[in-house]
């Protein structure tokens, strides 16, 4: 549906925001561009919209090359981070604006606006100005305006970031349901990994203008391709510890762990999510070496669980302890990795799970 080939965007001054990028986004897919700020994700979205002209490469939407087409002729609708609702028009006029550009008669477009507004439960607000709406309502009006013009593709720039935390979760569920119902190909940009995991069918994790990993939320979460993705995805940061593979054993942060036989000897990075480790107040029965041991340095309350930080020699190892089982500060504790959940990286590439 959307095909990008060798897409490069270089800004004056030599900054390559998007670097020779290839990407195919399927029909009806809910697709996330995820990355830290400055990784080029917004530039990529704006290039798909036509607001930026690529330095080289092509953009095709629905099989047609649109690289040289102005944004208005690409049949896309974009929702901006600040929603960009026209402050001097009421909600009806805002929603009907795309139809006004298409010269739809006034009566017809007001009818259409009312229809779309009803679908997003905005009917009572039709006569209001954007300034008189709450953040959540403004977001729904911006969505309604995008829906009203029946585009082939929706482009959302940080659709939830201007909402406060509680509203954001509601809006997330709402957005996912809406996208399912409309079944319109949707690309959205976010820096919030939780948002990308929750909403998207597929995620492209970007850094420095390139796609570092492309996959479903489960793939990206379970098997991050690089330590950058590993560190970026997940609500608690993954433990990334330098270690050495030697004769089928892994020496890391004072622990000696079993290693799959295919890992050759040499330096590796050991990645373990705090959620995939069990915290124990006593050494595991099968030998001291199979767990990280250390003193409890920090205990952070996560609500239903606790994030515990252990000092293991020079390294910090984090694990999640279930509610009511958190250790005391300063106590000795052991972190036991769950089998098959740890990831072994070498030269910043995933080798295997351990």
């Amino acid at each position: 549906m959307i095909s990008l080939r060798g897409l490069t965007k270089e800004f004056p001054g030599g900054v390559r925001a998007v670097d020779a990028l290839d990407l195919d986004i399927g029909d009806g897919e809910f697709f996330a561009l995820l990355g830290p700020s400055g990784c080029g994700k917004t530039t990529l979205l704006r290039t798909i919209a036509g607001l930026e002209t690529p330095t080289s490469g092509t953009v095709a939407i629905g099989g047609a090359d649109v690289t040289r087409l102005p944004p208005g002729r690409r049949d896309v609708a974009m929702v901006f981070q600040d929603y960009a609702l026209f402050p001097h028009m009421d909600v009806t006029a805002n929603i009907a604006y795309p139809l006004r550009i298409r010269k739809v008669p006034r009566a017809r477009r007001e009818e259409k606006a009312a229809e779309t507004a009803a679908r997003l439960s905005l009917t009572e607000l039709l006569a209001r100005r954007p300034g008189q709406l709450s953040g959540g309502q403004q977001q729904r009006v911006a969505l309604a305006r995008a829906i009203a013009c029946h585009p082939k593709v929706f482009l959302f720039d940080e659709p939830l970031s201007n909402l406060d935390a509680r509203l954001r979760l509601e809006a997330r569920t709402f957005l996912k349901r809406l996208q399912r119902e409309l079944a319109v190909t949707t690309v959205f940009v976010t820096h919030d990994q939780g948002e990308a995991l929750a909403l998207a069918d597929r995620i492209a994790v970007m850094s420095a203008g390139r796609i570092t990993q492309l996959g479903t939320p489960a793939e990206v979460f379970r098997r991050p391709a690089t330590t950058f993705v590993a560190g970026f995805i997940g609500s608690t940061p993954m433990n990334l510890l330098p270690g050495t593979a030697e004769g089928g054993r892994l020496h890391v942060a004072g622990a000696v762990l079993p290693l799959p036989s295919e890992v050759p000897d040499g330096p590796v990075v050991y990645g373990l999510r705090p959620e995939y480790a069990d915290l124990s107040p006593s050494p595991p029965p099968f030998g001291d070496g199979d767990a990280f041991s250390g003193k409890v340095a920090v205990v952070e309350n996560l609500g239903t669980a606790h994030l515990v930080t252990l000092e293991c020699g020079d390294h910090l190892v984090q694990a999640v302890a279930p509610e009511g089982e958190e250790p005391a500060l300063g106590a000795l504790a052991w972190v036991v990795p769950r089998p098959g959940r740890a990831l072994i990286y070498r030269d910043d590439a995933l080798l295997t799970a351990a």
Partner: protein
Amino acid sequence: MTDARRAVGVIMRATFLAAVLGFFSLPLLWLASAPFDAHPTITASVPSLTLANFRSLLDNPYVLSSLRNSVIQAAASAALVVVLAALAAYALSRVRVPGRDALLYVLLLLSSVVTGTAAMVPLFELATRLNLIDTHLGVVLTLSGGLLPAAIFILKDFMDATPTSYEESARVFGASPLQILGHIVIPLVRPGLATIAVWAVANVWGSFLQPFILLRDPDKAPGSVILYTLYTEGGSPRLDLISTFSLLYSLPVVVMYVFVSRRYGFRFHGGIKR
């Protein structure tokens, strides 16, 4: 002790403010009283009420036509300044031109020279060669040229304050540049346009030198020039006519200011975040 000192401070401040207030209000008081005075002098006094001054002013054949000329010149200049300044400010605000700010500052600096006394001779020469002497167009073009840089400067500030995402949003929906300007940009900067229009009208209304030099025919002269003719043959000012005409001449600008201020409120977006 400190109470006494504070009291003295209050009295001093009040006296000073009263003096300043008197300094500024006396001329206005004169303007309000002299036109209705049978024998006005250059001092403000309680008038011996009469409307005779208005009657004798209207006997002057040029008075009414001069007001009409002022309206023509002011309206045409304001329209020209608003349209050109809006287009220029929009372009300068949205397109990256190297040396844009330097250009604006130089224009702004020169604009005070261009229509000032210093440039009057070349302007007159230019107007003569272009056959613009004795035409409203000549006056309008000269005055607009002088007002444009400042108008562009102020409007660019308004344009800069409007987020580009409004326009980008409209662009994605397929709006053409002219539609974006008409549907989005102009409504958003309307207070700025109103400010510029009022400011241009007030400037042209009060300008004397340019119309005085560029117009020969008293039938085309604006009020500011006709005011200068209200003297006796001996060369002494006809205070009755001058005061009456001054009052008549200043009223339209005051009314316009109040109207526009009510309607749009003069909002400068500059430094202050509202």
